[in-house]
């Protein structure tokens, strides 16, 4: 049970990486989880090639799981291309978050940041929003 709030999760929650705003971001989006009102805004800056992610920042408020997962996500995607992140699976993030047997409700918390990032990249770069993510922008009320 304590896996849910193990050291690394709490560390990311209390000291989130990539917390903040990028002014003049190359890609951005905001989303809300209507279940709990959690909000995440994601900002992306690309390197000169316009494809490789130089930096991702996020702001918002939410539970430890949503905030820690988004914090981990910013580290995971740095240096990857928009296309690669567009194809990043839910499982890859959940594996990184590393909480076994998470309940469906908490899985949604963990995926909020990734869903918003995918929508931001989709809008800016036309990266695909695969079947499993389609509709998520509506579900998370992404603006």
């Amino acid at each position, binding site marked *: 049970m304590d896996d849910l*709030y193990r050291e690394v999760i709490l560390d990311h929650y209390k000291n989130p990486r990539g917390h903040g705003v990028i002014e003049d971001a190359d890609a951005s989006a905001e989303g809300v989880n209507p279940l*709990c*009102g959690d909000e995440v805004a994601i900002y992306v800056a690309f390197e000169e090639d316009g494809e490789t992610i130089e930096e991702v920042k996020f702001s918002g*408020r939410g*539970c*430890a799981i949503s905030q820690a997962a988004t914090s981990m996500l910013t580290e995971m995607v740095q240096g990857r291309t928009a296309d690669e992140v567009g194809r990043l699976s839910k499982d890859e993030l959940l594996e990184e978050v590393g909480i076994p047997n998470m309940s469906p409700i*908490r899985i949604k918390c963990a995926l909020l940041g990734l869903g918003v990032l995918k929508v931001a990249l989709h809008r800016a770069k036309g990266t695909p929003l695969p079947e499993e993510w389609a509709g998520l922008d509506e579900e998370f009320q992404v603006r």
Partner: protein
Amino acid sequence: MAVGADLKLDVAALRADFPILGQEINGKPLAYLDSAVTAQKPRQMLEAMTRFYETSYANVHRGVYSLAERATEAFEGAREKVTRLVNAPSSRELIFTRNATESLNLVAYAWGLTNLGPGDGVVVTELEHHSNFVPWQYVARRTGADFRMIPLTGSGELDLDALDGIAAQGDVKVVATNLVSNALGTVNPVERLAEWAHEQGAIAVVDAAQAAPHRVIDVQALGCDFLAFSAHKLCGPSGVGALWGRRALLEAMEPFNLGGHMIKKVQFEQTTWGDLPHKFEAGTSPIAEAVGFGAAVDYITGVGLEAIEQHEHELVSYALERLAEVPGIVLYGPSPERRAGIVSFNMDGVHPHDVAQVLDWEGVAIRAGHHCCQPLMQRLGVAATNRASFYLYTLPEEIDRLAEGLLRVRKVFG
């Protein structure tokens, strides 16, 4: 019945009526502190439903055979019990619905769409559950009416000083309020609001979903025009609720759902509506659920609503005291004397979902979220709160476990 002369509940004895409460969650005894969202069920109510299904079940108001008569008698007997629970003048004014939400939608659609127009004022409160907020907002938009809000004071009570300003905006036609707030536990001055509504020539619509299980309700003393509540919050089954309305208003209203049972005569050219309450009960009713509703009313009135209210008052006072001892707790809502058995709070720096999750490890079940009150959350400046809520089976020891669980939350999140 387990009640002493001083209205003291014998909670330990009452708990034996609730089979679900005997179990363990995550290796700890279940402390169910979420009765505001739905109440647990006593064996007496469950047995009444089973007995009805096993001995008397048929559709109601249709067959001429004995079994159908017996079913109809049980169904209408339940209507009488629910009518008496709120001291309504006649059981013909008591309509069975699916839940309190459907009761409120019935009024919003069947009364609102016909009687509201551009410039009319539809007044709700910042404390409303979405069920008494969204239907009115929607019907106001459909009819061009003006959607207005009674604001809250800092302590989470309705700011009645704002009423004059709302009236000055002209033509108030609907005043919709809850009797007890599901999010903060605030007990609202419904008599006063109903009186004010009538001074404006408006109808007063009361959401009593959070009040009917916990205190004596008298629609004639409240002076309102409609009152909505559900069975599942008062130890009854889910799937059935009630709407009481003044006969003259109900008779003048258009129907809500159309179909079988609600008609007098159907011809190719036109259909005439049935008498009350049938006009508003299209299709097969939740029959056994209504019988369970009646049995639940028997149960809570047998325990005694005054005693239940007093018990919850003691619990809420104790909970506010215990929670105030936990470092970093922010409490919302009014002082205990103007509040029902509901405590809404946040822990500094810890999201409600995380609080509720850690409490679940301790077997303590509380609600975390916006409680279907997003306008209120906006007003409080939070995304969500934690909410513990009590009922006749709640023990003070369970509040101790809540307080101890919160100390563990504090420890986990440092």
